[in-house]
């Protein structure tokens, strides 16, 4: 238990952990001054007894593809690096967190423009998975090890919100924002034992929430949810505040197990945990049935077409004219566009732009885009990823496109269908690494989804990451990791 602690003390402890875990490369920018200033303000409020709510004084981190006023937003790309003025405003989700008194610790690492499933393809280098350094993993490795150099075998975080997942996992903050178009929040969450939640969605591209438990995810969602007048795709219906009652009886629940998710690539460990989880629900009286999602195999293809098309379109604004990187060439406007975009974007981004534009060509639009759109259209239990986190050296054997297609296989269909989903850690693999399962809710039934997830979380009693070696003296203070148990003064 932290006991009574002031926001400033809490902030300083997190800042110190950020420094100690710098090698994880979780943060691109650490906003120390901003965070300390915010902590000071928060402390004043607590002293006056005017706390703004559950998040007042709580350290959070934000993926570096959310705009932050006064703090550089890079999207891990040369296109935006060093251009603070590109985003002179806070993203609505960031503003909502700040309005609740949250402390912004920094901007977290990602794949360039969030295109990837490893958090390995950004200009600031790959994010390392804190579980690589956990007691659980190290002990298993000693048993199985072939005496390799320990550090060369660090694990990837998954992506693209790997920085946010690592930041939360390494106790440097209590919650972090990720973004999720195909699984970028839930994928790393699964590799981390962290809870990756994507809320109700309208567009395919949505903010994700990474926390250390379901209740925390619900708290953050309660703050973020609601109509954003600046975003026409957000639902205008008023949002009721989120409280998660503890579910004691699951006998009225109906859990669907999509049979198409049982793919040959699924690791036997994940498969076994998946069926154990299904059995758990069944043994507690829930109705567990096999369901068919016949469109699943097409969904990843559709996802690729829709996603790259949106990418091609959204990235068209980076032309070097109004903001961002601009090349030195001044031969012609066209030459300037070409050079700027070649220098500003990495291969992955350029590749997606190219294929997206191909799908949008008049002759191809009907064949690809329209077909893909048509396929896009209820609690399901599925795996989140094919296997646990893999070492970086394994991961980079495949190209970004292939890896994304593999790694987003269970997660992207949710984005296609516009459904809320949450990844919850279940157990440690034989390697000592976390494995997550995904719950998919019905549209706008985020609360029900989270109630089920909370019940499940309680049943599985997933172990806390042990980073004593890493944290030295600090870890003990964070053993009680829930946000709600933090007592600020």
């Amino acid at each position: 238990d932290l006991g009574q602690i002031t926001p400033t003390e809490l902030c300083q402890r997190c800042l110190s952990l950020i420094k100690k875990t710098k090698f994880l490369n979780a943060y691109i920018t650490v906003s120390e001054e901003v965070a300390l200033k915010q902590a000071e303000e928060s402390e004043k409020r607590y002293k006056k007894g005017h706390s703004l709510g559950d998040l007042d004084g709580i350290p959070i981190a934000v993926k570096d593809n959310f705009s932050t006023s006064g703090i550089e937003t890079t999207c891990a790309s040369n296109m935006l690096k060093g251009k603070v003025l590109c985003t002179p405003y806070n993203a609505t989700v960031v503003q909502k967190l700040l309005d609740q008194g949250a402390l912004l610790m920094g901007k977290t690492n990602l794949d360039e423009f969030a295109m990837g499933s490893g958090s390995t393809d950004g200009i600031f280098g790959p994010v390392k998975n804190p579980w690589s350094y956990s007691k659980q993993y190290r002990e298993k490795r000693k048993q199985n090890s072939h005496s390799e150099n320990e550090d060369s075998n660090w694990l990837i975080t998954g992506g693209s919100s790997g920085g946010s997942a690592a930041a939360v996992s390494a106790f440097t903050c209590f919650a972090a924002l990720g973004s999720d178009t195909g699984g970028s929040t839930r994928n790393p969450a699964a590799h981390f034992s962290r809870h990756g939640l994507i809320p109700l969605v309208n567009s395919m591209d949505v903010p994700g929430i990474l926390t250390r438990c379901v209740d925390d995810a619900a708290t953050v969602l309660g703050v973020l949810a609601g109509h954003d007048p600046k975003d026409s795709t957000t639902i205008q219906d008023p949002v009721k505040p989120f409280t998660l009652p503890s579910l004691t009886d699951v006998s009225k629940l109906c859990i669907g197990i999509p049979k198409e998710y049982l793919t040959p690539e699924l690791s036997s460990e994940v498969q076994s945990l998946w069926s154990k989880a299904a059995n758990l629900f069944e043994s507690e009286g829930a109705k567990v049935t096999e369901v068919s999602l016949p469109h699943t195999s097409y969904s990843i293809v559709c996802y690729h077409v829709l996603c790259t098309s949106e990418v091609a379109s959204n990235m068209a604004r980076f032309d070097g004219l109004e903001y961002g990187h601009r090349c030195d060439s001044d031969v012609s406007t066209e030459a300037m566009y070409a050079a700027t975009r070649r220098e500003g974007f990495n291969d992955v981004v350029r590749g997606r732009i190219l294929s997206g534009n191909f799908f949008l060509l008049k002759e191809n639009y009907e064949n690809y885009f329209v077909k893909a759109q048509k396929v896009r259209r209820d609690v399901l239990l599925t795996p989140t990823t094919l296997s646990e986190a893999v070492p970086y050296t394994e991961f980079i054997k495949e190209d970004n496109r292939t890896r994304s297609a593999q790694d987003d296989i269970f997660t992207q269909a949710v984005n296609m269908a516009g459904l809320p989903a949450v990844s919850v850690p279940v157990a440690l693999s034989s390697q000592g690494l976390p494995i997550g399962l995904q719950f998919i809710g019905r549209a706008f039934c985020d609360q029900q989804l989270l109630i089920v997830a909370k019940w499940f979380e309680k049943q599985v009693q997933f172990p806390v990451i042990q980073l004593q070696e890493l944290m030295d003296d600090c870890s003990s203070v964070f053993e009680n990791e829930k946000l709600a148990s933090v007592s600020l003064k």
Partner: protein
Amino acid sequence: MAAPMLRWCCPGRRFAFARVGCGSCHRRGPPTGSTSNGKRGQSSVAQQPHITAQKPRKGEPEWAAVVGLEIHAQIASNSKLFSGSQVCFAAPPNSLVSFFDASLPGTLPVLNRRCVEAAVMTGLALDCHINRKSLFDRKHYFYADLPAGYQITQQRLPIAVNGSLAYSVYVGRKPSQMVTRTVRVKQIQLEQDSGKSLHDDLRSQTLIDLNRAGIGLLELVLEPDMSCGEEAATAVRELQLILQALGTSQANMAEGQLRVDANISVHRPGEPLGIRTEVKNLNSARFLAKAIDYEIQRQINELENGGEILNETRSFDFKLGCTVPMRDKEGKQDYRFMPEPNLPPLLLYDSGSLPSGADPQQVINIDQLRERLPELPRVTRQRLVQQYGMLPEHSCVLLNEVGLLEFFQNVIKETRAEPKKVTSWVLNTFLGFLKQQNLAVSESPVTPSALAELLDLLDRKAISAPAAKQVFEELWSNEGKTPAQIVAEKKLELLQDPEALEQLCRSTLEAHPDVVMDLKRGNPRAINKLIGLVRKATLGRADPTAIKEVLERQLSS
């Protein structure tokens, strides 16, 4: 008086209505009307409305021209289509640019209600079907004044479809021979305007002004139901009047609030339509008519000489009076259309479908907008004809000149003079003075009240008609004086003392025995000379009919 007066009122720069002399058929011959009429706009003499086609020569096969229009009308709104930036013409460069307008990452479009209402109202005024659901799409192309790399438009499902626009053209020489033609309105879509590029060739720089970027546009697609420049220009003029009456667009072509692209082709009647060319960015009605007529003749000449028409984009060189091919930007453009993911479908309701308990700020009721529609120009003209007994062509002139109808109605309100008198004075004298000095109605030194007072003086025979003209001239050049003051200063009031008139007549007869003799010898025109002499003696203050009466009585006694 009506005919020349009307031509007076049809200067080149404004097309009141068109005279379509030769139906819609075109003959071979060099492109005319473009160079020979070069000074049309500046001339203040009466002008015959431009006749498009050449007189048919016997035995030669005829050509039919087909003209369709794409019109962009800037929506009159306080803020832009998807952002809160102000809309204002001629503001300092880049002073009206929001983060969204500059396409900063993370900014999202929020649809301006006013722009949607403007589109619905325009659709209703043009008898369109209003789609209860319409969609937004992205149209991609790289251009320096398009910051996002795409324009948000309505390609798949526009807000309004299948309407019509009626306009009046002259078919013969007489102004009364007006017929109503109709052009179908294919669709009306909402879209964003682009910024402006200013090319500085000297320093080989391009300067970008994003003030215009993101302003709401109505794109109106008119089906190829027109056959010459005048028809197209007249249809555009009528549309302009409708937009202005609705207040949905200021539709000022000179300020770029109304921009027209024309699709033109020629074919022999009975045969399939020819290959069309597109003439872009026509920013005045006069250039529109000239460009179309030039292009029709160019295509006819090309085909008659064994050439072929290329499906190309051309621009109109107003100095040379001809159309020239535009530099094609790297061959064919593929706009890579895709649905705009950041905007949900635009839903509209009617009183029947309006969801109960809906926030009135968030829903648009088509029926409510229909009730709020103002009187449309066509109805106004009919009302003028019925209410004031004026000729249809007079009603046209009143509407075609910006502010003239309001001026006329203000005069009518304040004067006891006959509406016909008011019409004549407003259309002949008042408009004539305006034209001579190239002034707009709003710039007139004569106010409606002053003219009303003057017409009252005339109506109660306080002054003569020629004196009234003199007072008007004085009003025009000496602002601040009332007609009554001018009449008093210049002693223009009619002689009200019968004895004084008798006296003047008598002395005139005595002073001009030769004219009296002439009259007595049987020359009937001699009486006019005598009347003139008396009027001169009265300094124009006596009514000629009254003078005639007195003279005849004195002569016969």
